[in-house]
């Protein structure tokens, strides 16, 4: 095969997902040249949409966290503003926080945005919860303030300053969600209802860091949740366009097969599957360290600490989604909420355990997009998507000849549970249907085992120590940084944009030092 060598780039980004696109813009804004290589034929990774008949389905975004209104922007809107894409996208506000249903304790709770409204509603559902809820939000505010300080000094925090200004943050910082709520003496029922968002982070509340959870909840409740009007594909194309405006390049259908290096810290080029060589010294990988260190990087440059560090980490949830285009309106079908969390049990640790096996997993985070944006599908129709995760590789036991049936069975179960728990009959109105399994996710983005949530952010590998070790982790292989769901900020849209921002800016720093 002819090995063609292209021009050299200051940095190459592998993968045009949320993290990769953001990182590329940062590199270009820093005045350096950048090429983005994407294996698929469009940008976004999971942030995309697809057409079936008269419907355009959102592939993955349920709601964007920490976005806020134009007047009171959250960090993500501010990030989009600074990237130069905020105005390229039409935004809409999600009406309510969530609708929690659990089969075991029969919760059926609709929670609003706004701290006061949220606390008031909780008091209605759980009289006597007010004091602990106020304490929770006060603690969350301190978490947010501490994180803002940490960002402002690029993670190089002053211990004495932290102790003086954010003592509660530090004292609560090593505990799980449930340990902290327990100390706040929150009534069990209030805790159950408050913990509903846990599936967005994919770790049960016995193991999920309070800082991680609290910082997400406070952002949802105070900044609301937002969506782009044309599905997440609109964000991806806006970021893509921005890269072009800044003189960057994106090559599609261009999977990277190799990262060449003369040794640790000495990247020389990346190689495409067809042998094309692209000289560069800096790579930002919007994919998993398992792939980068396991298959891409020259074997001679892979060190024992890289292997040990990568092997030590646990894969998070493997995705499964069902998409339905229904030929009746949400109103006709009685679907009232935008965002349902339906659990077998309010006990998140027990629930997590049930999610290990396909047979026992009946959890769903379900969206009826029309209840946030009535015009998202034609008059008299509505669109729903149901998502769950498997917390093991049980899905890998499905034989090829059973594959389509296995998808149908899981989809059938999702519909059955939704109908049983909400009383809405949707089965007869299915006009379009699509199902994505871990196999689909593995095919689409190449992630090991169809994981959609990166590495599990639990216990020792939770968010706080990850953030405190950004510099140290990057020393594992200078010149190589990660962005997206597998990076330090863990998975999710907002987190991926943030990791792209961090890794992009830090790579600019590396490049500037080199120039000097």
């Amino acid at each position, binding site marked *: 095969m002819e090995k063609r060598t*292209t021009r050299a780039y200051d940095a190459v980004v592998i993968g045009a997902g949320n993290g990769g696109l953001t990182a590329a813009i940062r590199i270009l804004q820093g005045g350096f040249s950048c090429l983005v290589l994407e294996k698929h*034929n*469009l940008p976004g990774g999971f942030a995309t949409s697809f057409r079936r*008949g*008269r419907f*355009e389905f959102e592939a993955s975004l349920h709601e964007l966290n920490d976005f806020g209104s134009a007047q009171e922007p959250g960090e993500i809107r501010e990030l989009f503003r600074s990237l130069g894409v905020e105005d390229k996208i039409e935004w809409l506000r999600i009406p309510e926080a969530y609708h929690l249903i659990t089969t075991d304790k029969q919760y059926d709770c609709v929670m609003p945005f706004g701290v006061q409204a949220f606390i008031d509603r909780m008091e209605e559902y759980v009289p006597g919860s007010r004091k602990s809820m106020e*304490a929770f939000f006060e603690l969350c505010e301190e978490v947010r303030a501490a994180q803002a300080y940490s960002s402002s000094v690029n993670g190089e925090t002053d211990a004495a300053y932290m*102790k003086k200004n954010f*003592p*509660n943050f530090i*004292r*609560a910082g*090593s*505990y799980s969600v449930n*340990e902290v709520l327990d*100390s706040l003496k929150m009534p069990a029922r209030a805790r159950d209802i408050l913990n509903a968002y846990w599936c967005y982070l994919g770790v049960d509340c016995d193991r999920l860091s309070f800082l991680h959870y609290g910082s997400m909840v406070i952002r949802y409740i105070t900044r609301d949740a937002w969506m782009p009007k*044309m*599905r997440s594909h*609109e964000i991806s*194309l806006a970021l893509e366009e921005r890269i072009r405006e800044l003189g960057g390049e994106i090559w*599609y*259908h*261009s*999977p990277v097969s190799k990262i060449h290096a003369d040794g640790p810290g000495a990247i020389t080029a990346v190689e495409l*599957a067809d042998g094309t060589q692209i000289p560069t010294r800096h790579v930002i990988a919007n994919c998993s360290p*398992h792939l980068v*260190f*396991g*298959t891409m990087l020259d074997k001679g440059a892979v060190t024992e600490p890289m*292997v*040990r*560090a*990568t*092997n*030590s*980490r646990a894969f998070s949830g493997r995705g499964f989604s069902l998409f339905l285009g229904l*030929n009746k309106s949400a109103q006709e079908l009685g679907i009232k909420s935008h965002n349902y969390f339906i659990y077998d049990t309010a006990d998140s640790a027990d629930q997590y355990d049930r999610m290990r096996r396909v047979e026992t997993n009946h959890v769903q985070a379900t969206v009826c997009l029309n209840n946030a944006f009535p015009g998202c599908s034609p008059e008299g129709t509505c669109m729903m998507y149901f998502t769950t995760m498997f917390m093991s590789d049980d899905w890998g036991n*499905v034989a*090829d*000849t059973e*594959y*389509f049936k296995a998808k149908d069975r899981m989809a*059938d179960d999702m519909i059955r549970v939704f109908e049983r728990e909400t009383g809405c009959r949707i089965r007869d109105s*299915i*006009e*379009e249907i699509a199902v994505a399994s*871990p*196999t*689909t996710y*593995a*095919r689409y983005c190449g992630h*090991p*085992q169809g994981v959609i949530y990166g590495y599990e952010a639990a216990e*020792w*590998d*939770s968010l*706080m*120590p990850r953030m*405190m*070790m950004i510099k140290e982790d990057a020393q594992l292989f200078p010149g190589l940084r990660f962005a997206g769901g597998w990076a330090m900020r863990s998975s999710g849209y907002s987190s991926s944009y943030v990791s792209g921002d961090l890794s992009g800016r830090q790579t600019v720093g590396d490049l500037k030092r080199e120039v000097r």
Partner: protein
Amino acid sequence: MKFKRQIFGFQDMLRFKKLVPNRRAALAAGSDKPLPETYRVNQQAGRLHPGVMEVELTAVRPLAPGMKELTFRRLDAGAFPFFRAGQYVSLQGRVGESLVSRPYSIVSSPRQALENKLALGVADAGFFSGWLNREARPGDRFRMTEPSGEFHYETLRDGRQIVCIAGGAGITPFLSMARSMAEGDEPYQMLLFYGARTEAQLAFRAELDALAEKGLRVVYVLSDETKAGFEHGFVTAELLEKYVDIRTSSFFLCGPQAMYDFLDAQLAPYGLPRKAVHRDASCCPNLRLEAPRVFRLTVHVRDQIFSMEAAEHETLLTAMERAGVPAPNRCRAGGCGYCHSKWLSGEFRIAEGRDGRREADRKFGWIHPCVTYPMSDMELEVPAEK
């Protein structure tokens, strides 16, 4: 407030201080076993969705006047992927200077695919199909895209009773669907109406008669002949009523546009919901123009630039194929999105009813070249061939 969990707040602080050393130790304590090169679910994804396959033609068999069955085996693996009966593949080859490709419905069953056998029914119509009918010989090699398409049964959407209506060469996907049913992989009961001009033009008679022994119900409908054992005329609502309850059936139609138009009119009085009627997509044709103009098309593929002529009545994809520029494509009907490309400049029009783009594609200037015709000089950026 003052948060604390342990009796003394400093104990909580100490725990916090240990977060980093704990993580550092855990990372260093990971196994030193080499990282996996592949993963089980990804291997399955690779088997079910190989992308593009290298294939060899193993047999050519005449089916009916102007129609042949081509059977292939895979060279880059020992089996074709298991697929959903009703799906198509795109066959790609080189004819002279042109790179050409066409989607064809699979006639063999998903189980046969696992025996490294995949058959297509190809009618002698159009440039590539005509060439395949006349010139292709066993031993010839091609590229083939993985089975894809949404023209297949959906357990949770469709009724158990399916009514399939084939016009002429449109019989092909139904062979696969009937075989898959007979092999126990599909839960439906299938009633097939197969329309042709004369009995001699019916393809797959022996196969269909054999499948009739295994539960398939077939009704042959001849428009130009009257014969015992055959229905005469077209597939009308009245004819359908003789065999099935129209209102509780799910329809699958595959045939020429004229057949779709005719059946639409026949079924209109029943007010069937959209979900009850599925049509197989057809290739986007040339426009009929008196004196088509010729424009200059500039195409960027990665860091390479190609320049070529593009006729006003042909799609941008056809222009690229004529010039031998490899442009990704599958369905050639506007729907699959595989040819998704960045528009850079110039005016264009999209074939009526075939704009399968996403909303944001329109906003940010992306097109599907397989259904887009130039109306001025144009410049595009096209993904590389994988």
